């Protein structure tokens, strides 16, 4: 590839685009782990803070008399006993919230990713829908025909109202990456947009290399 190609490519990539479409194509690259990550960090911080505070208390940093009080302080027990109804209701609400949030989190993180169908025309009586698998298979089959692409896999991701395509291309070792991407956009995605009649289809492309073919040890 020549230097000129690279320059042209970079210029085109800098063209103005709808930020929402850019965001959709970026988030199509992989399943988001943002919620799992932030919750794990939050729980970690709570445990870290509690552990450090108790250790400091235990070593007498907050005063020796305080450190020698029992873990279940009679002062706190008396305070709870003074307001039994409020204490019980608070305890039940906290427990129920904990159970609900925990279940929602666990269910959300093990739930398989959505594969939305492409709705081309939604009328009152008839609607034209391309199933998620059919649309993705068509793109993957076309992508496999490109020179330099050894394998390709595609699937639709995202909410049904804003579907996006996730494509993994396994390239041959000698593939011209820029050219593969250009032809993928022109030929494969161009055809898909045209035949499906949609103007925007955000796509996240993951590039990988095909398994190396080992030369025979004896020739």
């Amino acid at each position, binding site marked *: 590839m020549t230097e000129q190609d690279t320059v042209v490519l970079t210029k085109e990539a800098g*063209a103005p685009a709808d930020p929402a*479409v850019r965001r959709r194509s970026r988030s199509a690259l992989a399943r988001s782990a943002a919620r799992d990550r932030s919750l794990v960090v939050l729980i970690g911080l709570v445990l870290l803070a509690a552990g450090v*505070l108790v250790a400091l208390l235990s070593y007498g940093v907050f005063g020796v008399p305080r*450190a020698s009080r029992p*873990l279940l302080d009679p002062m706190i027990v008396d305070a709870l006993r003074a307001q039994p109804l409020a204490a019980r209701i608070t305890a039940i609400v906290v427990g129920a919230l904990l159970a609900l949030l925990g279940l929602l989190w666990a269910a959300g993180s093990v739930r398989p990713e959505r594969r939305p169908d492409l709705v081309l025309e939604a009328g009152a009586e008839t609607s034209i829908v391309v199933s998620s698998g059919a649309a993705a298979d068509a793109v993957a089959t076309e992508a496999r025909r490109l020179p330099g692409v050894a394998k390709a896999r595609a699937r639709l991701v995202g909410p049904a109202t804003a579907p996006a395509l996730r494509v993994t291309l396994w390239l041959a070792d000698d593939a011209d990456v820029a050219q593969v*991407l250009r032809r993928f956009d022109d030929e494969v995605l161009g055809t898909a947009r045209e035949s499906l009649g949609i103007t925007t289809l955000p796509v996240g492309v993951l590039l990988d290399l095909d398994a190396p073919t080992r030369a025979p040890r004896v020739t």
Partner: protein
Amino acid sequence: MRVLLRVLAPLLGLALAAAGVLFVIEVVAAWVRPVATAGLVVPWPQWRTTLEQLSWDENPVPGIAIAVAVLGLLLVLVGLLARRSNIQLDAPNPELAVRTSPRVLARLVGTRVRAGEDVAAATVTASARKVSVAAQSWNGGADGLRSSIHDTVEALLDELPLHRRPRVSVTVRDREGVR
């Protein structure tokens, strides 16, 4: 780290849910049968006696507190390190987002470098910011090889539409022996 997060997240969620359910069960049970001396599922009256007799400065309180703090630190690290380390490439169309893994870049660089005539062996580490090549040359010639490998890698980076051009660092040492 990402795999660990995927395993840990539902387990932590279930643990939280289980703790919440047990808590509600015990509170309700203690409310409706005030005279009972044992817990329904959890033996909390025994725990209560232990907690009443144990003070903050006694063992094993500091040990457990340190263990909890370390566990919390590990969770924070897992959460922070489980980010994608993908390398961004420039796409021909703004509707496209193209990424690849550092492993792929390292393999591309490695294949190109090892194809060089005077290279005996090469190890490549790649990230979005830096590509490091550690090569071995045959019987001297390390000085010339260093710049030639550097040029090879730079030429490869010219071909790839990388969004951010990584720095290239090359180290070469001699390998003694019969070629």
